[in-house]
């Protein structure tokens, strides 16, 4: 106890009294009403039987559903394929913009356009491409590469279905990573890269030893956001494949709307929540900055 008493007295910032709580109150109320309450409702619903008694039946039903396992695997597969490609693409696009090409500003806006397109619209756009009589098949037939076109989105072709969803997702969501990475690069003082140039680093060495490490905070943000958003991917796949290529959020929708079973829908939603939290924590751990302070 004495050691505690001997500790030097730190100057406390002046107390603000009760007023901060009043200032925080509106947003707290809003959060509780809009997020907290539905969350509690969702958790309860997932563990309640018809009458309100505790049960694991909803979960048993969910795990017994072949669609659920498939949706889970598809979702994870999509993340594993799409997120790395998007990161690499976004960094590449950023470097292109940074090299100050002609009309660089125009490129930036063009590349950022998909940000403004809703997922469903994006899905429908790509549906016109991949449909049996879509643009892609017309092109293939026109070039004489295929006689009747390929059934890209057919239930029997899981690979091309995955491919179509991957392409559409990459088109739709890379721009978000791109914008984050561009912001990160533009925040970076040019001195570090210049120093690396003077000290003999090649373009690759500069990218690897200087630019990417300094971009780590931005990449971390992009990675977390993209992974969590990819966990929630829904509309694009829905528009392209319906339930032929099930995803987790699609299953929530399916259970809630078509199967009229909010309890199992809640259970799926909780799975998504757990996965989101898990990935966020994992990334934070793995990418923690070694130095306590920021640059400079």
């Amino acid at each position: 106890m004495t050691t505690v008493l001997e500790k030097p007295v730190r100057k406390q910032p002046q107390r603000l009294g009760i007023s901060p709580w009043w200032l925080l109150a509106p947003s707290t109320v809003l959060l509780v009403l809009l997020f907290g309450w539905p969350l509690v409702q969702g958790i309860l619903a997932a563990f309640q039987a018809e009458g309100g008694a505790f049960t694991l039946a909803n979960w048993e039903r969910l795990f017994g559903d072949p669609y659920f396992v498939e949706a889970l695997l598809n979702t994870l597969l999509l993340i594993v394929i799409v997120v790395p490609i998007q990161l690499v693409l976004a960094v590449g696009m950023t470097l292109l913009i940074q090299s100050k090409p002609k009309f660089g500003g125009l490129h930036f806006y063009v590349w950022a356009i998909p940000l403004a397109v809703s997922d469903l619209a994006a899905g429908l756009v790509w549906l016109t491409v991949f449909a049996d009589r879509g643009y892609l098949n017309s092109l293939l037939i026109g070039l004489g590469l295929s006689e009747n076109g390929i059934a890209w989105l057919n239930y029997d072709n899981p690979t091309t279905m995955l491919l179509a969803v991957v392409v559409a997702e990459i088109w739709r969501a890379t721009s978000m990573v791109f914008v984050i990475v561009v912001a990160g690069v533009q925040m970076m003082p040019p001195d570090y890269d210049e120093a690396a140039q003077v000290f003999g680093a090649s373009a690759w060495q500069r990218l690897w030893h200087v630019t990417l490490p300094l971009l780590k905070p931005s990449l971390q943000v992009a990675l977390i956001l993209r992974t969590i958003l990819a966990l929630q991917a829904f509309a694009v796949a829905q528009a392209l494949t319906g339930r032929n290529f099930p995803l987790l959020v699609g299953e929530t929708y399916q259970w809630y709307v078509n199967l009229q079973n909010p309890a199992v829908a809640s259970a799926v939603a909780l799975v998504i929540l757990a996965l989101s939290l898990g990935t966020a924590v994992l990334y934070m751990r793995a990418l923690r900055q070694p130095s306590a302070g920021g640059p400079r």
Partner: protein
Amino acid sequence: MAEIELHNLVKTYPGGTTRATDDVSLHVADGEFMVLLGPSGCGKTTLLRMVAGLELPDDGQVVIGGKDVTYLEPRKRNLSMVFQSYAVFPHRKVGENIGFGLRMRGVDPDEVKRKVAWAADLLQLTPYLDRYPAKLSGGQRQRVAVARAIVMDAEVLLMDEPLSNLDALLRLSFRAELKKLVAELGTTTLYVTHDQVEALSLGDRVAVMRQGRIAQCDAPTTVYDLPAEEFVGGFIGSPPMNFLTGTVVAGGDGGFQLDLGAHSVPVPDALSGFSGRQLRLGVRPESFGVAARNGDPGGLPAELEVFEPLGSSVLLTVALAGHQLKVQAPPTFRAEAGESLRLSLPADQCRWYDPETHLLLETS
């Protein structure tokens, strides 16, 4: 062998209205220590960055070691640099920062370790080798930048105000260390500073810059003793050179005199062409001889306005025929403000300037 030749370098930054460097030519001999000195914004960093290849000139040529490198990538120029902003990598420990250039070149790890230890020892950074730069003071970070540059053994060393953030004592000791080190390494060095004492003490030659041009490039003593422009005399020296304007009139003895109003100073015969016109006289504060009122009957009478003892000398502010002058006297000199003094002006300490061009005039 790596001398640096700069030919007519012109650089205007995009959006800039004036030239950051305006037709600069400079020759730095192999192994020479050249200091670029000038006020803030005169284009020193710009010039250095063009030598490094970080900035491309609009016109002109950079030649290093006989090879035209004007448009060559920085990494192929075999030079190293201390940045004005240090540019010490925040994500690398001090040791890794110092060894960065060597590792990029693929030098053997043991050799890198040895050189890093050597440089860290020299710059008193050994205790910090395992720290991240964020946990260093500004001066320590600056020393990391210097260490990173000197381990490279490059043919050309560019330093942009590398001692600016050190305390006076440390700066003094590092200045001497640096001079010794660079002499040992034999590296051709371009050193930027706006500290004139540093410039005079370090440089084999000093190039004084003003508004993107080199006003004078000479040995330190010459730059100090014979400023080629009034600007140089006014920029170097603390306090700077005094300037007096007067009209040249014929004296009684057939020679010429500079009429300062109440008094006059003899003008060298070589400048007789200025008879009837104005002329500027420049005198260093320590060039005046000072005596109490009744000491030197030949001197110019002046009134003491301010008396400042500075320890190693005494600084006097005096009024001479309506001009205010700074005069440096020996530390033993004593006088009271308001007293009148006698100033003597040795002829060989007078520098004459054309009032229109502000250039030094030949007197011999």
